[in-house]
């Protein structure tokens, strides 16, 4: 199973989808926002935490759609299903590889992007904490969406459509955590909710993803 | 000998340190990669000469 994780990481690095790209995409989104909403520091500071969370979400999303599709198209998925590792484990490893290549770099780099958006000083810590707790759930939910759409060509947009609503709770509690933290308010509730959602997602969703893949292969 | 930088010491020193660090890093990386490639090429040419 570790072999699968390593292979996916290696593929990500080789195939022009490595660690740097998620970050670069994030940077671009952060750069584009002021072009859209205007350059005034005040407005930017108000929306900064939301923009950073949305950016993380989109960076996740853009790197998702091929997570199983490639393995499906070249026949690897058929072979993995018949291999002696549980499909649930394989799915979790895929999610882990995705998080390491996109989620983790975002967590580490988010404070730098915060500067560009005039994020208020006390918010930095909470930004990192919320992303660290929340992004694993994004990756796992993303693999679920990818598993559902694996048989479809051009699944990209449909995938977003399926996955984005699932991201709503994570997004709400994540952005709320940053906002409250920055304002010096009580953060226990969003913090616990965020951690809880992520833990439950990691524990349960891979079963759903594996089931979806099995169904998709049945008619291939 | 150190010039008096006043309240902007951090600003000035920070810029110089950042610049020098970035440039030095780039040079080090270039030299390292250069040496590595040079060695690999020498090895390859040697091998091809031996094998014909």
């Amino acid at each position, binding site marked *: 199973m570790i072999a699968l994780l390593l292979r996916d990481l290696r593929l990500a690095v080789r*195939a*022009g989808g490595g660690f*740097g*790209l998620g970050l*670069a995409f994030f*940077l*671009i989104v952060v*750069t584009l926002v*002021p*072009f859209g909403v205007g*350059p005034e*520091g005040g407005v*930017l500071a108000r929306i900064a935490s939301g923009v950073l969370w949305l950016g993380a979400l989109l960076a996740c999303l853009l790197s998702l759609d091929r997570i199983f599709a490639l393995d499906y198209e070249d026949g690897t998925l058929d072979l993995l299903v018949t291999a002696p590792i549980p499909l649930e484990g394989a799915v979790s490893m895929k999610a882990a590889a995705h998080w390491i290549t996109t989620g983790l770099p975002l967590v580490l780099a988010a404070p730098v992007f915060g*500067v*560009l958006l*005039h994020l208020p000083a006390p918010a930095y810590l909470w930004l990192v904490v919320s992303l660290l707790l929340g992004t694993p759930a994004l990756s796992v939910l993303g693999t679920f969406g990818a598993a559902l759409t694996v048989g479809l060509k051009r699944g990209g947009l449909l995938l977003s459509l399926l996955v984005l609503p699932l991201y709503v709770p994570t997004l709400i509690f994540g952005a709320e955590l940053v906002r409250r933290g920055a304002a010096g308010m009580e953060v226990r509730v969003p913090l616990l909710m965020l951690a809880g959602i992520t833990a439950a997602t990691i524990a349960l969703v891979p079963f759903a993803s594996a089931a979806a893949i099995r169904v998709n292969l049945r008619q291939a | *000998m150190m*010039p*008096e*930088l*006043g*309240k*902007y*010491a951090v*600003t*000035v020193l*920070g*810029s*110089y340190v*950042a*610049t020098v660090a*970035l*440039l030095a*890093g*780039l*040079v080090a990386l*270039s*030299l390292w*990669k*250069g040496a590595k*490639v*040079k060695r*690999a*090429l020498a090895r*390859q*040419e040697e*091998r*091809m000469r031996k*094998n014909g």
Partner: protein
Amino acid sequence: MSIWEYANPVKFMKTSSLVLPWATGLAAACLIGGLIWGFFLTPDADNFGSTVKVIYVHVPAAMMAINIWVMMLVTSLIWLIRRHHVSALAAKAAAPIGMVMTLIALITGAIWGQPMWGTWWEWDPRLTSFLILFLFYLGYMALWEAIDNPDTAADLTGVLCLVGSVFALLSRYAVLFWNQGLHQGATLSMDSAQHISDVYWFPLLLCIAGFILFFVALVLLRTRTEIRLRRLKALEQRERMA
């Protein structure tokens, strides 16, 4: 003998090995001389205080950031039109240097902005255009990395550089239109009315020369590496075919 002879890798390797030590030495001399002069031997300015010393790294880096992109555009065109491998490889070798220069301009600018404008970052047109330039460098380098056939990569990055240059220029105008900024105007012009005082001007010139020579030396070194890498790939491939 035509200038294109230097586009032959063998000739290039020979010539560059002769030029490289001189360029390195001169670059070190100018850079160290200029920075020491600027850092230790110039007075503070009325409006900037001691932060004026940042100018010696900030301005040369900013100038190089732009000029290196122009150089990449020219070498890419030479590759696309005349297909001299050295030209494409020089563009590849220059990109990381340009990216680092852009980064230096951005970082020193941000550090400078903190005391001067009271903020690390402002969406001023000059700064914003640099951020965009940085993105173009990133994209260009990422494309080189992603494609493993070297000639294909050279062709595609060449096309990207061409199209990118046009849009980088357009972005500059767009950004200027979008936001009037805080940044210094161009005071480097030869127009004496707005010329900065000679005390700063001469060490700055020396630093600029130093940065240019630094770039020349480093780009030669890196191009040599790229040529070797290209030859290594060709040899490996031939060995496999045999």
